[in-house]
């Protein structure tokens, strides 16, 4: 992965004597002490991190932890007190006003705000082409580009509407489209979805992820909502008092919180939204191959105390599921024959889920499933593992299930699985 943004020892002090506060910070004083003693507000305190190309990097933390300040430092809406910000190899802290303007035009898709910040006197189309207009793009060209983006965010037909006529979700789509319309690679979003009601918010998150698949921007997303952070973020930085407490993927943060603060934070987290099918699946204990005879398959089933078995070809591609009871009947029918072929009719199709599916959706899939375990497959339908009911239950209960349990062991999960049959 290529680096897009590198931040080195970045600090921001609000107030008239920033250097004094900076020294106090170095001497180990806390944000609260500096406020009390020096009357200076510590916005961001000596943070360093890298953001890679095309990732969604989330800044997460409670109110006042410095998320917005850090984000605004990245395009120098706030001037850094000290430290460096290197974007695509350019140290932007050294740019003059004019160069900075050029840099913003070339590298940033503007900014998306909680209160949308779209222009009330302009209709949707005029709002979306705003960034292009500033760059002096000709009218026809920017209209064309704006219309295309408007389609992408699902605002088609609203080009002529004014912001006051739109719902919150639609207004935020305008904000998003305005950023996407300019041909730049970094998108800054500050609590972009926080003002939306939960349902719309969820929907916008999904849409953002979908758009991101296509647009491949580098997104810095600020939120105070851990759920949102975990849903959107490829990596998440958890901030407290202007410092970054931990940076990592959702799994890393949940499984190895770097501090008590982070631990306390993630404990409230609804795990089902974080864990994915991949986290709770179990590797195959036993599977049948298309070339296996019915008796061999039955033996495999009996040996593992199963009620059925998944069948793949030699390349692990999933072919179906065979229920033990049906297999027994079939064998009885053909008892007299020496060797019986495996009848394709015995195969039924189990529900397949992708490794990335969040657990709460896996639960739904499981409830709709009529037989056997859920098959976890990759994009080319190759079998990666199975999910049994017990694994879902223990995932919700907070234990880590799956991978480290050796095959064949009767874990509580598997016992429950057997009970069900």
């Amino acid at each position, binding site marked *: 992965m290529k680096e897009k943004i590198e931040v080195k020892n970045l600090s921001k002090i609000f107030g008239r004597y920033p250097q004094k506060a900076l020294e106090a910070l170095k001497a180990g004083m806390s944000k609260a002490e500096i406020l009390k003693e020096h009357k200076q507000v510590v916005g961001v305190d000596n943070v360093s991190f890298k953001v890679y190309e095309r990732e969604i990097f989330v800044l997460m933390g409670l109110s006042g932890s410095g998320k917005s300040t850090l984000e605004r430092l990245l395009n120098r809406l706030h001037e850094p007190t000290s430290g460096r910000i290197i974007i695509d190899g350019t140290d932007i802290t050294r740019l003059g006003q004019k160069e900075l303007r050029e840099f913003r035009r070339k590298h940033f898709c503007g900014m998306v*705000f909680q209160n949308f*910040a779209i*222009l009330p006197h302009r209709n949707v189309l005029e709002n979306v082409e705003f960034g292009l207009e500033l760059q002096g793009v000709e009218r026809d060209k920017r209209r064309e580009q704006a219309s295309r983006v408007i389609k992408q965010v699902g605002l088609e037909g609203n080009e002529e509407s*004014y912001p006051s006529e739109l719902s919150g979700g639609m207004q935020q789509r305008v904000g998003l489209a305005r950023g996407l319309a300019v041909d730049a690679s970094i998108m800054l979003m500050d609590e972009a979805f926080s003002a939306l009601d939960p349902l719309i918010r969820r929907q916008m998150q999904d849409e953002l992820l979908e758009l991101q698949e296509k647009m491949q921007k580098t997104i810095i997303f600020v939120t105070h909502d851990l759920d949102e952070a975990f849903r959107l973020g490829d990596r998440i930085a958890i901030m407290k008092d202007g410092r970054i407490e931990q940076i990592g993927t959702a799994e890393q943060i949940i499984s190895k919180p770097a501090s008590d603060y982070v631990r306390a934070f993630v404990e409230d987290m609804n795990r089902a939204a974080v864990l994915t099918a991949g986290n709770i699946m179990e590797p195959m204990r036993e599977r049948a191959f298309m070339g296996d005879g019915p008796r061999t398959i039955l033996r495999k089933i009996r040996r593992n105390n199963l009620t059925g078995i998944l069948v793949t070809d030699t390349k692990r591609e999933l072919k179906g599921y065979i229920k033990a009871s049906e297999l027994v009947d079939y064998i009885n029918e053909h008892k007299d024959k020496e060797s019986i072929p495996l009848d394709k009719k015995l195969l039924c199709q189990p529900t397949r889920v992708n490794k990335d599916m969040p657990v709460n959706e896996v639960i739904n899939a499981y409830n709709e499933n009529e037989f056997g375990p859920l098959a976890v497959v990759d994009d080319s339908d190759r079998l990666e593992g199975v999910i049994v009911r017990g694994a879902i239950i223990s995932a919700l209960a907070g234990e880590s299930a799956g991978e480290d349990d050796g095959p064949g062991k009767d874990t509580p999960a598997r016992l429950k699985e057997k009970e069900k049959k």
Partner: protein
Amino acid sequence: MIMFPFRIPIKDWISAAVDFLVSELGAVFDGFSAFIFFLVNNLKDGMLFVHPLVLIALIAFITWRMAGWQIGLFSVLGLLITENIGLWVSFVETLALVLTAEVLVMIVGLPLGIYAARSDRFNSFIRPILDFMQTMPAFVYLIPAVMFFGLGLVPGVVATFVFALPPLIRLTNLGIRQVPKELTEAADAFGATNMQKLFKVQIPVAKPTIMAGVNQSIMLGLSMVVIAAMIGAGGVGTNVLRGIQRLQVGEGFEAGLVIVIMAIILDRITAGLGQRKKAG
């Protein structure tokens, strides 16, 4: 009992300063005076050149577009009454004076208001001056106006200008300062220049407030009409004054009524300007 052994000679200073300006810059004032006279007079002659019904139709059309048919109808009736009671020429004279003064107010007030919004220093410099201008009794402005420009139309325009200027500066300043920070930040984030930010974001977003300033300053200008008539500015104010001097209640009331009609029309037009965009 004498409390002070001396008296601060404020009046002498002011008089001396004005005398100095009149004697040293007389030519400048004369030129300016001729220019203003030219503006007002041409505007007035132009409006009197066409048949009253044409002008009435035009004004009614504008009010109808800006403020709806009720006000359009009202202005037709009001202006017909004005013509009927023989105050049409006075009406046009006053309109020309107020409009000219307002144009000058906008030419001077908008840039000052914008500058005050961008510079805290300039704002704190100009604020007390504006307070002073607004609280000073309007009559006081007549004295320097007469000294610089003599009697007649021009000092009337100048006094009206001075009186009507503060609200526009104030509200332009306020309007631009009230533009949500996120809007200007968004413009900055896209790499807007200061001018782009001003003309594409700040002024358009502040427009309703700025138009409220235009509206207020026109209303204040109208309130100067009678006072300006005292120095010979002409117009409806003269009719009001005559009514007072001769204790002719009827004539004074008629003239007052015409001023009210003009006030309502101008008020609704400028109020309409402020919110036009939403409907369109």
